[in-house]
């Protein structure tokens, strides 16, 4: 019997078989499980763990956090500088306040020094951490594929 003949014969025989019927216990079991799940988890999605949120809410929250981070990174210093410039132009500050502002600016400038020094190193280590994470995820995936257990389709 050729490949095609065998394929057609088995196909015909299998498709002629009636669909197996679900056991009569399935519906009551499902409804019992549904009732238990509904009783156990009455909280709305936003009060549950983030991983269980609806996909749209997850995407929206990620986008919001990302935008907020970008805004904080790029815009806040510029906005602060602009606001300070406007304020200093519009308000005649008393001498003591002016010196206080100078002192604050000095503190801020000093606080930025470590960051200016560490920034290249931090970027390097950030990339390194990202690469290490990728290697770990890939290894984990490969390990699971190799050591998945159960039926092997290979």
């Amino acid at each position, binding site marked *: 019997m050729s490949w095609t003949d*065998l394929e057609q014969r088995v196909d015909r025989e299998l498709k002629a078989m009636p669909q197996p019927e679900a056991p009569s216990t399935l*519906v009551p079991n*499902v*409804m019992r499980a549904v009732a238990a799940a509904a009783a156990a988890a009455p909280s709305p999605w936003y009060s549950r763990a983030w991983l269980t949120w609806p996909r749209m809410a997850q995407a929206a929250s990620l986008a919001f956090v990302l935008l907020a981070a970008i805004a904080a990174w790029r815009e806040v210093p510029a906005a602060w500088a602009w606001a300070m410039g406007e304020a200093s132009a519009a308000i005649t500050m008393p001498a003591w306040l002016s010196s206080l502002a100078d002192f604050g600016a000095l503190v801020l400038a000093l606080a930025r020094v470590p960051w200016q020094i560490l920034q290249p190193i931090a970027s390097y280590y950030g990339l390194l951490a990202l690469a290490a994470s990728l290697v770990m995820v890939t290894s984990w995936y490969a390990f699971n594929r190799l050591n998945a*257990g*159960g039926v092997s*389709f290979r």
Partner: protein
Amino acid sequence: MTDVARFEAFVREYQHLVFATAVRLLGSAAEAEDVSQTVFLKAFERFDEIGGSPSAPGWLKTVTTHLCLNHLTRYRARWQFFSELERDDEGEGSFAENIAAPETAPPTQTEARIARLESALRALPDHQRVPIALFHFDGRSYEEIASLLGVSLGKVKTDIHRGRLALKKVLDVVD
């Protein structure tokens, strides 16, 4: 009609579809019932979306297939390990004779034949039964099955062919 009543009607409508898909992939009625229950719990979580949707049967079949493949991959490790240790007759010649006759004797020859074929299908090893079920009952191509199972096209064709030969032997014995 309340949501719960609507969902119960939904389960009643699709229970056989889900169970049949699961039992043909898993080869075990008990495990198929467990997986079916999980499928319907997932459906309940998304009932607002899929409850009245015409794509509900397709969604249910897809979820059932993926859950069954996960089940086979994850939860049969020990079972498979020991069963393969104990298996001493890999020859396919004994397959047809080893298929158990149905527990209750069916009244007609056709029903007996169907029951024997169903038993034979369930008794196939997972790596043959799963691609056969995906090909003949789900209508998937060899390429789709290879992609779904993460194996080569040649492996899928070989496994399906060997499974078909085993089923043919059973049919020849019955006929």
